[in-house]
């Protein structure tokens, strides 16, 4: 029985685990709906878990060779580890952020500063704010949005 030789569910389950992991960082992170809470990835992990369960049960059937059991055990363990790392990266590590109690609050003046732009020219916050005012002459709301980010590395 050739069809019994190859344990398809375990391999597909492992593949889906890999997809579930990497698709967050390369695909789903670009869409707020799938980024803010990784439900799409958890769904994929769920599908992978079902496949792996079927695969492990099949591998440990009495008529299966030993190497099938070993392969299934390794793939299932790796999958659990990948899922664990995903949960750590998205739910635990990503929440380890400083409290930033001393950050400027609503109603406070943002402290002025001067930093270099991409051409190496110094730019001050007061400059940026007044640049908006000079361009005015219309009733549009105006302001500056400061975006602090972790860096592109």
């Amino acid at each position, binding site marked *: 029985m050739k069809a019994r030789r190859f344990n398809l569910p375990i391999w597909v389950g492992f593949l889906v685990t890999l997809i579930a992991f990497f698709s967050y960082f390369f695909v789903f992170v670009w869409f707020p709906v799938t980024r803010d809470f990784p439900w799409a990835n958890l769904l994929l992990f769920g599908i992978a878990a079902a496949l792996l369960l079927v695969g492990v049960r099949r591998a440990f059937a009495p008529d299966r060779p030993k190497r099938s059991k070993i392969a299934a055990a390794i793939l299932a363990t790796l999958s659990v580890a990948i899922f664990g790392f995903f949960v750590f990266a998205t739910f635990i590590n*990503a929440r380890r952020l400083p409290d930033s109690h001393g950050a400027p609050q609503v109603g*406070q*003046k943002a402290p002025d*500063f001067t930093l270099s732009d*991409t051409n190496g020219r110094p730019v001050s916050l*007061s400059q940026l704010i007044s640049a908006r005012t000079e361009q005015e002459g219309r009733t*549009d709301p105006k302001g500056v*949005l400061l975006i602090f980010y*972790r*860096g592109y590395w």
Partner: protein
Amino acid sequence: MGIQPVAISVDSPELSRDLCQKAGYTFTFLSDPKADVIRRYDLLHPGAGIDGQDVARPAEFLLDSSGTVRWVNLTENYWVRARPEQILEVAKTLR
């Protein structure tokens, strides 16, 4: 809408220039390599960079024309960022 975005990180001006070219960003990118301003704003995330360097935690501030903070977003999860709609909603109230 008259809102000028200004991005600030510890990245060098050269690195930010590369990013702008690749991503097509045309707004202002400022470089704070020693994290002086990031520290003054209490946004330092020590050792969180890829090589363990100090970086800024993600944060967004909307300032009005007097430089007063009108809206702050200090995310609790760095995968969750402010959405443009949120900012535009507050921007409507600026005069």
